[in-house]
């Protein structure tokens, strides 16, 4: 990193500030809209205010809405009280603005969609993301250790198969996986001669097959990329440490648990954070695989919300803020770790 000249420093700071301003402005706008009264969302401006117009008729002040100015200089206004009649007055119409922050847009949006509350959607997303993350970390760590340290017949061929599938787009495996899940309950029922596998699940949706937590979670618990990344990291751990543990009487699982995993915390954390973020924001697969409202995740709720409340910007924006908050909040609290993780995920991968 060079020490820049004073002029260059000033230029850099101005350029960065301008660009950073454009990245932040949409968020400020969103926040402002989400706090505005319903009839003021179209008024522009970033401060939630309530604009009222009033006019004095025969010594009394009336709240009105200005319709237009007439050619003779008088004002045509609609009275906002009593019979709400339209009258022409000599004016003047006074406009007052006052701060009007509507925090209650948030509870309104939270409960707006009757079949699925934000609470349930958060919970579903959380369940799915946590289980997918746990699943990936466990299965990938075990497989990565086998590929990195254990010697067995066919290891390298298998590893090549993993690598070869790494660049297959998710959309490609989606349809066969969908067909597989769709037929899974029937196949299992047939094999075991029961009706058990097409049962309803307690939490909503079905036990197995499409439209189930199983469909949202199980296909996501295995990752060739995660296996590859952890294997590369495990290979960089000095073998002597593991040999010492073996001399102390550790089996392979013990070595993995007491030596390799503690030394791989950064890699595990990276895999965990990225898997969690990806599972949290994933939209296409849940969209294809779910039907019941009760198992829908946050992105699906947001989509439904936009369909129903697309015209009510204050609620829509409150919903967006609630959708953004968990990830953005987590990032702001731990941005160092996110950034380090990105570097490591790419360098090792």
């Amino acid at each position: 990193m060079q020490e820049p000249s004073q002029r260059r420093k000033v230029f850099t700071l101005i350029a960065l500030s301008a660009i950073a301003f454009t990245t932040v402005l949409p968020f400020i706008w969103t926040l402002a809209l989400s706090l505005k009264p319903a009839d003021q969302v179209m008024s522009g401006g970033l401060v939630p205010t309530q604009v009222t117009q009033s006019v004095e008729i025969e010594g009394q002040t009336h709240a009105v809405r200005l319709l237009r100015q007439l050619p003779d200089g008088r004002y045509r206004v609609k009275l906002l009280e009593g019979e709400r009649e339209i009258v022409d007055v000599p004016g003047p119409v006074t406009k007052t603005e006052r701060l009007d922050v509507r925090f209650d847009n948030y509870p309104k949006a939270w409960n707006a969609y009757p079949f699925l509350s934000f609470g349930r959607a958060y919970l579903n997303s959380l369940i799915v993301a946590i289980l997918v993350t746990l699943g990936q970390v466990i299965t990938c760590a075990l497989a990565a250790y086998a590929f990195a340290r254990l010697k067995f017949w066919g290891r390298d061929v298998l590893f090549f198969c993993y690598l070869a599938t790494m660049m297959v787009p998710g959309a490609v495996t989606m349809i066969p996986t969908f067909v597989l899940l769709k037929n899974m309950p029937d196949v299992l029922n047939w094999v075991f001669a029961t009706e058990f596998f097409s049962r309803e699940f307690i939490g909503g949706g079905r036990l197995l097959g499409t439209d189930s937590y199983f469909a949202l979670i199980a296909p996501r618990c295995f990752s060739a990329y995660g296996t590859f990344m952890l294997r590369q990291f495990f290979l960089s751990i000095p073998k002597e440490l593991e040999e010492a543990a073996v001399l102390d009487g550790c089996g392979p699982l013990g070595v993995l648990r007491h030596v390799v995993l503690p030394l791989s915390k950064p890699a595990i954390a990276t895999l965990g954070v990225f898997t969690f973020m990806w599972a949290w924001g994933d939209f296409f697969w849940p969209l294809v695989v779910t039907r019941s409202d009760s198992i829908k995740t946050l992105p699906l709720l947001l989509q439904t919300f936009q369909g129903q409340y697309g015209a009510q910007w204050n609620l829509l924006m409150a919903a967006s803020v609630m959708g953004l908050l968990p990830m953005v909040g987590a990032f702001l609290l731990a941005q160092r770790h996110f950034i380090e993780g990105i570097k490591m995920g790419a360098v090792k991968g």
Partner: protein
Amino acid sequence: MAALAPIVAKLNPKGSRSRQLGDFGLGMAFLAPNFIGFLLFTLIPVLAIFVVAFTTGSYASGVDPVTGSFWIDARFCGLDHFRTMLSDGHFWQSLGNTFVFLLAVPFSMAASLGLALLLNQKIPGRVVYRTLLFLPTIAAGLALYMIWRQIYNQEFGLFNQILSALGLFEAGAGPDWLGNGALAKPALLLMLVWIGMGGTNMILYLAALQDVDPTLYEAASLDGAGSWDCFRYITWPSLRPTTFFILTTNLIGGIQIFDQILIMTGGGPDGSTSTILYYLYLNIYKYDRLGYAAALSVVLFAIVLAMTLVNWRLNKSAREA
């Protein structure tokens, strides 16, 4: 993991079993949890797509009450899907649009590199800038696309408000960005660049810039090289592996553009923003043509494969040159 312990203990090579077999069993025990999932949800689906793409039907299944045998409603139709595709205007339009949206990749990479160069200096507040620039990436998702749909609103959107404040047109008289077939694609491209510029790519470039050997720059400036020469002959070549990595991953990601389309335009107006994945979605969801959707994903697969190979080739010849 605890459940595996007895198996592993039994297979421990320190025991009496032959080493060869023990190691194979041990390897399999460690691999099994991942491998079963990998087999079921990756390897078999990847192979199956080449079967499903040549079939048609509802793919419903059940057990025949009379014979007790298992049935699935699907039958082979040969190359029918691919023949249909050749004369399917919506498919070609979606394919073309997908490639237009890939233009966001070079633009956002250039922006990322520019920002990384700006940030790679001793200036106050680096972490703050980095955090703010990263916000769009961390926020990317359904909620952010909902917001951008409103930003592009004709009458009250932020974008037109800014443009009219700059004096480009009267308030409320701006263009309908997402509702106009000619403007919707550039509008989406702008958003894609905005999201991507300060994100992962910038972080990777920044890390790579910090790895460039500073003595190279010192030697170059002794030889009288200007800052452009330094960039052209030192920085850019040193960044090549990073550029290659970013390009490959971004192209593979970019060709799968979908969420934005569904939320912001619904493929419209008149299919002008429909993409391969959006069309695939319509085939699954609206037209109930799973087989055709599978054929589309075979095409997607082929494109990704071709792009990766070309990229890899280019990188190889650049390294040898």
